[in-house]
């Protein structure tokens, strides 16, 4: 009987320690994922704003190009900053859209 109680108590302690350890591991993950999701949300909203600015500024003359690497997109945007009088903010946001 005593042995059974001892076994139950040990099982409870083991479960509690596992749950505690899991909670300790989960807390930093939640803390890390919160800023990560906020950053992703910001990037998405900037990409959406970049799409709007592309359609508003660049769409007056041409359609969006197919896939561009980030380096190519930067060069194209510098060219279009001169040709289409884009502002620095337009350039930054459209880059987020063309090469997220």
């Amino acid at each position, binding site marked *: 009987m005593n042995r059974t109680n001892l076994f139950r108590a040990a099982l409870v302690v083991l479960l509690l320690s596992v749950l505690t350890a899991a909670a300790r591991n989960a807390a930093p993950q939640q803390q890390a994922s919160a800023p990560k999701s906020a950053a992703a949300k910001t990037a998405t909203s900037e990409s959406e704003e970049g799409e709007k600015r592309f359609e508003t500024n660049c769409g007056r003359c*041409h359609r969006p190009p197919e896939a561009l690497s*980030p*380096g190519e997109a930067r060069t194209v945007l510098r060219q279009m900053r001169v040709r289409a009088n884009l502002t620095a903010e337009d350039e930054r946001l459209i880059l987020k859209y063309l090469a997220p």
Partner: protein
Amino acid sequence: MFVRFLSFLLLLLCSTVTLCAQIETPIISGGVQFLSTTAGGVTTFNPLIAPVVSIPIGDRFLIESRGTFDEFIFRENGTSGPYHAHTFSSIDYLQLDFIANSHVTIVVGDFLTPFNIYNERIGPVWIRNLADSPLIGGIGTRTSGSSEGGMVRGVALSGKNWQITYAAYFSALVNASQFGAGRSAGERVAVFVPSRRLEVGMSYQRFLQHQHLNSWGSYLVWEPRSAPLDVRAEYAHTRGGQGYWIEGAYRLSRFRGPDSWLGRLQGIARVEQFYLGTPSPDDVLPGADTQKVDLGLNYYLPHNLRVSGSYGRQFSSLGNSNIWNVGVTYRFLFPLLPGGSK
């Protein structure tokens, strides 16, 4: 000329080797087109390639240049006889840009003359909706469509819902074979309303050679948010004549999206009129009052390929004519150096 351009490209390529460590990638872009035109019953063929080289240097500089190589293929007697071909090549512009700040960009070299919008912004074959240039395209862009000298441009003022943009330039007289330009000065000012997708602008040029000429122009670009419609229009006036064109392009992207088989189709209509003034031998304008109507269809295939067809009817005291255009255009963009796509 072709060898010279290749040498120039090679020089640019060598210079870019030292630049490949930077974030921006030097690129070569542009368009390839094959166009068949039947005007007044006479058919000609016009293959063309127009590469644009863009090389960023540091954070604020950019070297950009566009060349055009095309061939004009025709039959000896118009509609009969053996075929002949004339080859043409030109450097459309070669300029160094310095982005000083958000309001000022300084351009030096050979640059496209910023008179109205057609010459500088919507003239390239991979951008224009119809193959034929407008009748008034020669106003404000003499003698070659480009200027040699310096230009200042940018966004002068901006608010939440508006921008005022400007470009002011001075061009010297240059008679070099590939960099010809007339002595002139001019400006362009525009108001852009992003929320309405509306741009309205005006241009002025003073031609300062053996004859002093004023050219005036105004333009409008409007893309309503409620429909996939592009409206573009220009008016221009000079001593040799005046005229306007207005063009509407409607893409059927509302039908199952822009990538559906029907959504890739775009219908275009353009109406233009030209009224002759006091012509001079240097003018690149019609020799009589002219009216023209164009109707066209563009089909946007995947991979930047476009198939185009248009019909135009021109009315003039020099003779009425039908103009048919059928063409294929490919728009390309590659890194200038192997492995430069990062």
